[in-house]
């Protein structure tokens, strides 16, 4: 399936992390593409951008943000959007993504991906803001399903319904994080496949996989360690619904060597094409 936005299949990529900068610049490993955390390259004029420029010369780049705060009731931060757009143009990023969440109100930034209530009011609010961001960027925004640890009593729909309606009504793209689906399914007791069944896969332009931490009573989306097989299998299931969608591994804590991280990402090949 080709996504409706015509965005390319970049293959299997890695989240770009500072501990790997030198290896990538010096060894020039064969990697399909890198995803950057956009916010790490804003408000800097120095070394992070120097490394990024070197890497962007050689590899396709996609931007993944954590501070857009698309669900916040604070006004959209136009300065942030301007910086985001400038960075996208600088590194020729194929697309820009962020999360279905909010990060703060009253000008504070908690730097956490806080959960949205799934209500009609919240949906209308986010749809309007996604449209405004897309107008500003002049390109589709991809929103990622978050991992969440609470559900609100006032919710009038489930997350998958909210996400599907948001994508249709705002005409935006989706970044499907299958680890987040797995985490939230465990935390809230829903069926991950039911979640996938409800998504408009023609709007999915990218998939994420990652490790997590199981506390027994709940799972935390820690991005630590290898991806467990049930998450790989969920990726296989999702990818079968949208073949040709690029896949990316996020590994953000206790990050191993570049080779080991890349080897883990390439495990996706074992699961792509698997049927439910």
């Amino acid at each position, binding site marked *: 399936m080709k996504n409706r936005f015509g965005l390319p299949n970049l293959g299997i990529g890695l989240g770009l992390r500072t501990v790997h900068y030198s290896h990538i610049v010096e060894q020039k490993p064969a990697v399909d593409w890198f995803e950057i955390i956009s916010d790490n390259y804003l408000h800097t004029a120095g070394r992070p951008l120097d490394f990024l420029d070197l890497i962007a010369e050689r590899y396709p780049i996609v931007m993944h943000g954590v501070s857009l705060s698309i669900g916040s009731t604070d006004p959209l931060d136009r300065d942030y959007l301007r910086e985001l757009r400038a960075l996208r143009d600088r590194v020729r990023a194929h697309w820009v993504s962020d999360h279905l969440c909010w990060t703060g109100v009253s*000008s*504070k930034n908690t730097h956490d991906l806080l959960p949205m209530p799934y209500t009609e009011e919240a949906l209308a609010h986010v749809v309007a803001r996604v449209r405004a961001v897309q107008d500003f960027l002049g390109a589709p925004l991809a929103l990622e399903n978050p991992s969440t640890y609470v559900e609100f009593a006032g919710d009038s729909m489930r997350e998958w319904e909210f996400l599907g309606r948001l994508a249709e009504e705002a005409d935006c793209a989706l970044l499907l994080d299958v680890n987040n689906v797995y985490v939230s399914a465990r935390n809230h007791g829903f069926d991950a496949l039911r979640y996938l069944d409800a998504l408009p896969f023609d709007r999915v332009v990218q998939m994420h996989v990652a490790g997590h931490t199981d506390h027994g009573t709940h799972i935390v989306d820690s991005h630590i360690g290898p991806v467990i097989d049930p998450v790989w299998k969920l990726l296989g299931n999702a990818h079968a619904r949208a073949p040709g969608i690029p896949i990316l591994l996020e590994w953000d804590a206790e990050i191993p060597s570049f080779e080991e991280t890349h080897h883990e990402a390439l495990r996706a090949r074992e699961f792509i094409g698997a049927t439910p």
Partner: protein
Amino acid sequence: MKREATADAIGTHERASATPVHTDHHAPSRHGVTPNWVPRELNLAAQQAWFEAIVTTPESEPAPADEAGLLRLVTPSKELTALERLDVYRRGYYARLVECLVDDYPVLQHALGEEAFEELSHAYIAEHPSKSPSLNYFGRHMADFCRTQPLPSPGFAADLAAIEWAIVLSIHAPTAPTLTSEELATVPGERWPSVCLKANPSLCILHQEYPANAYLQAFRNDADPSVPEAKRTSVAVYRTQMRVWRLELTPPMVTLFEALKSGATLAESLNRVAPELEGTPEAEAVQMVMHWFRTGVSSGLFSGLYFA
């Protein structure tokens, strides 16, 4: 006069879409009372303000949520109460920002000890919450903050924090070319008095009450240094290409480099340093100044030259 490289990983914290793993050593969080909203008041803005208040309230203080009232707003899971579910976010908020401060201030953390540093960080986060989409400058108040805190040696902690923050700033400062001796050699002899040097944009000259740079270097050398006695020192922190450097300076060097950094001509800069060389034979003084000048240039403190 030692020029020391600083480990490359310093000050390059990641800001990822991950939630920190929470350890179980936390004391139980304190809770207050959930707002008793009537339906028309419970809009998205009110709900987010309330949620943020819970998340950002230190665990030692009561957050606006209690189990009974909370059930009207948040559902429990099979395994966790509604309050326990909220606490995942509450702990994550502090854990994430403490991680950021640890990344910026690893030597300060070593000097204070992990527990004291975490306590300091919690107080810092409460006093200076982030209002920026980026965490790159979140730790900028730490040196001043240390001076106000009941630490064993607040002055030393502040000086150490100041050096570590200068390292972070140097990483984010614009990258510039390094002035070379070949460029200097092109200056005609008669124009030397009017030559001005462009300072490396990352250059920061710190004046400290404690030898914090020596402590930092000992830590880098895998030693376990003790908190030093007070001793006035000056250190230049700057970056050339991908590498950060620290260069300890004597008082006349500080005068010379600060004059050049301010845009003074070489002649003016030498005049400023002259009083500090009183009593030194002229030929020796000239030799010393030329040595400092060459050291500053060869170390990468300057990125170019122009004429006044």
